[in-house]
């Protein structure tokens, strides 16, 4: 019988086994984009499973609603099955290969990257030092910062682009149209699926109760991150276009964006970690649990160290604080294509592909 559960099933095979049961059931149709996408098919290729897995954001509604969870012999646990497929797929797509598994599954690898990043910045400050600039540049010249961070920013983007191309090929994507991209961005922006469909929120840290805590924490992280990013970008524009040098005052654009951004990022990340500690690890990718906690921690640290650095302005601590902050940011960017951060790119790609499929179906 095909439903015999043998431990030799790969993550993709196990997810396929479960999705086929869902396809005969359909009770969870209203929760998220995974189900309508699945129910439009009768059979599922490996690429289809990857696509479905990338549409899932692990809200767990379908687990708690499922009448077939363990100890039932059908042993449904769709959130975990799809999470395992995602973790494996990111490893398959990541370039250079193999790094993703290390950073996703081993928190210690990320911590190592962090230590290395910070040490590098201490070294840079000591070895290169300032070229007689003001503020932060008194510790590390602007040119040196750019020389370090431009590649550290561009390389991950290039690596991610390779990953997304591989994703696109695997799920059978056709050439992108603008409407696919807008559809994906609109979906992602509203985080429509995170709202739990017709219900409110996720079934995350309180078992089968719906709460919006995870949605809010996630929003805080996303907006915090974007604000910090905008802050840095505005600084760059001020520097190059208007020839205005850091440090900037409290009412300057970089600070107006950066301070709330840093606060949101820090609080959001702390919230996500607290929720993850309460939620049942068996409903996610078990192997990636530690790596995910470490990743969110690193994300939060980028915000926190930035805030602390700002608070320490004018004191003797600026040097070490700067090294701490820049080192954290460096570690974050360099590991970005291999950490949970990559999910943002794959998820956008999945939403764009979903829009394509829906449009093709008419």
């Amino acid at each position: 019988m095909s439903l015999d559960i043998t431990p030799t099933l790969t993550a993709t095979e196990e997810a396929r086994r479960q999705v086929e049961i869902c396809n005969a059931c359909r009770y969870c149709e209203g929760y998220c984009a995974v189900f309508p996408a699945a129910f439009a098919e009768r059979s599922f290729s490996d690429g289809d499973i990857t696509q479905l897995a990338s549409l899932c954001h692990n809200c767990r509604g379908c687990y708690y609603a499922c009448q077939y969870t363990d100890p039932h012999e059908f042993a449904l646990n769709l959130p975990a099955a799809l999470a395992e497929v995602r973790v494996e797929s990111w490893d398959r797509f990541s370039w250079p290969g193999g790094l993703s598994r290390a950073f996703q599954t081993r928190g210690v690898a990320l911590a190592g990257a962090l230590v290395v990043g910070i040490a590098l910045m201490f070294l840079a400050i000591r070895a290169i030092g300032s070229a007689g600039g003001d503020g932060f540049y008194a510790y590390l010249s602007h040119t040196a910062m750019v020389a370090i961070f431009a590649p550290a920013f561009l390389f991950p983007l290039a690596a991610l682009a390779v990953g997304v191309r591989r994703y696109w090929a695997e799920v059978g994507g056709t050439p992108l149209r603008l409407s696919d991209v807008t559809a994906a961005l609109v979906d992602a922006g509203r985080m429509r699926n995170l709202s739990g469909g017709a219900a409110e929120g996720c079934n995350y840290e309180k078992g089968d109760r719906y709460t919006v805590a995870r949605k809010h924490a996630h929003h805080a992280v996303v907006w915090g991150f974007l604000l910090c990013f905008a802050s840095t970008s505005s600084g760059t524009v001020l520097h190059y276009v208007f020839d205005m040098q850091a440090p900037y005052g409290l009412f300057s654009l970089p600070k107006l964006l950066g301070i709330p951004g840093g606060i949101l990022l820090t609080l959001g990340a702390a919230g996500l970690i607290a929720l993850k500690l309460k939620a049942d690890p068996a409903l996610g990718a078990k192997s990636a649990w530690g790596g995910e906690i470490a990743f969110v921690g690193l994300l939060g640290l980028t915000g926190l160290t930035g805030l602390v650095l700002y608070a320490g302005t004018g004191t003797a601590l600026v040097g070490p604080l700067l090294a701490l902050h820049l080192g954290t940011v460096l570690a974050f960017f360099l590991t970005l294509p291999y950490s949970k951060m990559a999910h943002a790119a794959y998820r956008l790609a999945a939403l764009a592909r979903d829009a394509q499929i829906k449009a093709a179906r008419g």
Partner: protein
Amino acid sequence: MTDIDRVTWDVVVVGGGNAGLCAAIEAAETGAKVLMLEAAPKTYRGGNSRHTRNFRCMHAGPLSVLTGTYQEDEYFDDLIRVTKGKTDEDLARMTIRDSEACLPWMERHGVAFQPSLSGTLSLSRTNAFFLGGGKALVNAYYNTAEDLGVRVLYEAEVRHITVTEGRFEGLDARIGGKDLRIEGRTLVLASGGFQADLDWLADAWGPAARNFLIRGTPYNRGVVLRDMLDQGADSVGDPTQCHAVAIDGRSPKFDGGIVTRLDCVPFSVVVNRDGDRFYDEGEDVWPKRYAIWGRLVAAQPDQVAYSIIDAKSRTLFMPSVFPPEQADTIEGLAQRLGLPGNKLRETIDAFNAACREGPFHPTELDGLATQGISPPKTNWARPILEPPFFGYSLRPGVTFTYLGLRVDRTARVSAHGARLHNIWAAGEIMAGSILGEGYLAGFGMTIGTVFGRIAGQEAAAHVA
């Protein structure tokens, strides 16, 4: 746990499915001290209710996810059609009328709805679907009950109710492996039917019943129902009948639920163990016929049948949970299904020869009938010719039993024709009062919600 046998509870609810939960919530909202005893462990709580997907709801205009209107008379006509008149009109109409207020009540108590599922559009006007299905509904109610202070005990099987001179005084239960005596001022019985007790089924139906599959929970064994009947409680419903449909023969013995449904029959040829056809596969559209196929299959040797289609029909029905057996020849398929190959070949050849040309419409009665064979196939009769051929085994799957406790409009149970002083019943255990025969999709949850709420209110008012 130590305190529960030292308290006199205001309301004791037996069974933690939809009906019991509605009763417990209503009672607790008045401030009553409520204890709920659920036989299953927590993971399997919620009985058959955890397998449901919708309830049937009257409405005078669009209501939540429901489209159009569905008025009392149409609803009642639908009920009369399936029960062939075996209903109590007064109770039935009351249930129908009350159903309209249930939907907003359910939403207020945590139940979320979703639009009609893909493949069930025909129900979008009459039936409101629960987001995530019945288990999500059950979870929502348990959370609500817990917030209201209802005490819930799992693995708590009620064995005997003490009724003295028409009055409930207490009950004996086995809770977490220990025998306990529970005292209470009122009692609500919501422990479902007896379909999971195969011995009882076999007594009622004959030994063939041991081969039936039970679609829902293994915990509805009718222990309380029998105990009450033994003490003279008035009964309703045919004790020998159960609602059974034809489901995938490879399903688990219990709790297979909705996914074991097979919708291939109208597009197939169905044979028994000996390779013979025995009934018109195309008599009507499947939703109207799938209930009679349970009995048809139950009447065949070994209580098994086989539905056979060819490649062209493969995608005409909802996907099955188990992939079908498959072969490139009829003989090969017969071998895989354990059927006599020559005989199956003969049956299929005779069927094919009786098919004629004509338009085929899978979603409506198309009149494409066989000529000159018995039994005929009166719609969708297309020859089984294109390999690969597919086969599914079919077995009777029992949904519920009809025998139950007779109740009045206030859900009160009676014995020897007199109302019991402080005992009410709701859900499957009394559904026979309204559903004497057949089944109307979504009506089980409606009965449970309406009567569960009434029972909870009445019991609470009794102790107030």
